[in-house]
């Protein structure tokens, strides 16, 4: 059983809160499953940054498209992917979004305009530009969003894609999730000038926004998306945010000291969930939390109960035309 897509729910504060909680709960569950060994290879948890995915996706229509990052679960869920099938993907099961062929870093659902999380920093930027170009060629008013982190600001291909988007006035929104660190390297020691300054240099309207505030992100994204959809060209948002967990799950074992406990505690004070809950009538957040718990319990049951793929089919889908490559041994 697959649960229905959730993106339509982002139109109300309650729907947005529920999605924040769903992403948070999903990541907590995924962390447990990494710890237990059920998920192999680890994940890059999105905990702390949920307001960015939810705020941006709340500004989108179902036919709009996104490209995501190695830290992609939040974007994928907020664009409407089924949590049970995403979890099954993380577990490498055939019922996963990608039939267990992609895992955490490549989760995609093309039927929802999710052109994939991506394992290469900055790679999604120009792909989103291509999707925006395509939509314009087809005469459709779809917008494309590229999510990326502060680390991607130093990838040349991303800056090249700013230029293409601006030159051709394409309907694309660049969303920089500045969580302060490119893995362990502080943005302050890696990014000359400023993030918004880089976009502005290409003539792209650029805004800095509190990335811990869902409504602020939604408002800024709505403005940029509306402009892009109306033919006004690309936009850029720098969402100042923070990841409460490590860069990836391996970090728990590594005892790294690139940021202080005080810094993490300070940012936890800005947790986007209580801020979004405060906008709701009394008692509603608790009800939504309970419904998310139920949904995730069902997702876990679905995912853990799903089939493992057959090793005989490891080369399925290597080619879209069904070409079967030679085997690695003839003996």
């Amino acid at each position, binding site marked *: 059983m697959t649960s229905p897509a959730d993106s339509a729910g982002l139109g109300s504060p309650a729907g947005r809160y529920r999605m924040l909680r769903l992403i948070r709960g999903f990541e907590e569950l995924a962390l447990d499953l990494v710890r237990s060994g059920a998920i192999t290879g680890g994940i890059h948890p999105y905990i702390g940054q949920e307001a960015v995915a939810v705020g941006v996706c709340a500004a989108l229509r179902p036919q709009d498209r996104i490209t995501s990052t190695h830290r992609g679960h939040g974007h994928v869920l907020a664009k409407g992917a089924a949590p049970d099938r995403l979890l099954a993907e993380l577990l490498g099961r055939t019922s996963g979004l990608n039939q267990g*062929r992609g895992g955490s870093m490549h989760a995609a*659902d093309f039927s929802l305009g999710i052109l994939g999380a991506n394992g290469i920093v900055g790679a999604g930027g120009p792909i989103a530009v*291509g999707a925006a*170009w395509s939509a314009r060629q087809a005469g459709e008013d779809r917008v494309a969003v590229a999510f990326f982190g502060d680390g991607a600001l130093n990838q040349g291909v991303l800056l*090249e*894609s700013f230029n*293409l988007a601006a030159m051709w006035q394409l309907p694309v929104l660049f969303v920089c999730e500045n969580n302060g660190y490119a893995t362990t390297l502080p943005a302050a020691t890696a990014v000359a000038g400023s993030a918004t300054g880089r976009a502005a240099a290409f003539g792209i309207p650029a805004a800095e926004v509190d990335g811990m505030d869902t409504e602020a992100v939604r408002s800024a994204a709505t403005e940029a998306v509306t402009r892009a959809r109306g033919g006004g060209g690309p936009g850029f948002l720098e969402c100042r945010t923070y990841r409460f967990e490590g860069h990836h799950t391996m970090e728990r074992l590594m005892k790294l000291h690139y940021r202080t406990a005080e810094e993490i505690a300070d940012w936890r004070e800005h947790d986007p969930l209580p801020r979004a809950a405060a906008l709701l009538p009394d008692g509603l957040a608790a009800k939504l939390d309970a419904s998310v718990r139920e949904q995730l319990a069902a997702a876990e049951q679905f995912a853990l109960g799903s089939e493992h793929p057959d090793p005989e089919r490891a080369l399925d889908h*290597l080619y*879209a035309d069904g070409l079967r490559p030679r085997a690695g041994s003839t003996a």
Partner: protein
Amino acid sequence: MRLSYTKALNRALTDALAEDPAVCVFGEDIGAGMAGPTLNLLDRFGPGRIVDTPLSEQAFTSMAIGAALTGRRPVIEFQIPSLLFLVFEQLVNQAHKFSLMTGGQTGVPLTCLVPGSGSRDGWAGQHSDHPYSLFAHAGMKTVVPATPTDAYGLLRSAIADPDPVIVFAPAAALPVRETVTWELAPIPLGCARIHREGTDVTVVAVGHLVHDALAVAEELAPEISVEVFDPRTLHPFDWPALAASLERTGRLVVIDDSNRSCGIGAEVLATAAEEMRLVAPPRRITRPDGTVLPFAPQLDRALQPHRDQLRRALRAVMK
């Protein structure tokens, strides 16, 4: 009709653009048609489909991938073969991997055209590479047509294919002209062509080297009966056709403009040795290991496969 290789590429693009509105072309100086294959396309199809790009190979390659993921059928022209090294990530790590990584949710119908691959005489180290083996090794469908008719037919099939395909048009094949009395038509990928039948030795020749192989075969006809086998597509390679040829000849020489180690020539020899009939040790003629083509014409030519080497190899396998 007299058809040049470049004109054949131009015809293939024109016909594909006319037939399918999803086809579009990206590249540098393609509006002016500087490399030849895109001549007059801008006038006929307009800037919406013939997109002159800034010098941002990585971004426009990925942009074409994004377009391919969302319903377009883009062709990218790369003016210089070595530009492929800039976009190895985009082609191999993104375009090639999307189908499998998404569990078959999408193909990436992208064609990369490299008119003027290999040495162009006098363009030196960074304009003279012939990296088709790299792409075949990585698993991208890889095509190296030798003749105008094949260039037309294989480019048409590449554009129609649901997967990324890279088409190398060797600089040394561009001057080839054919008198075409037949209807130009798509030629399926993965099908070899035997240009000349023979009974003593199979010469597997790649791209422009097909013409060298044919010349040497004619010249040596009184002493050796040479079959000239043009794989046309390096990945997927037409192994059954090679096996059938070696059933007839039992001897194998490969002439291949790749660097020696891990080149397609090495793969042909290895596969033949493992799986096919050979009555004599096979030979291959390639560029040296790790070649960088030097500028001076004598040095440039000295490192490319040449006819003397082929003559010697043919006589060696007959001993």
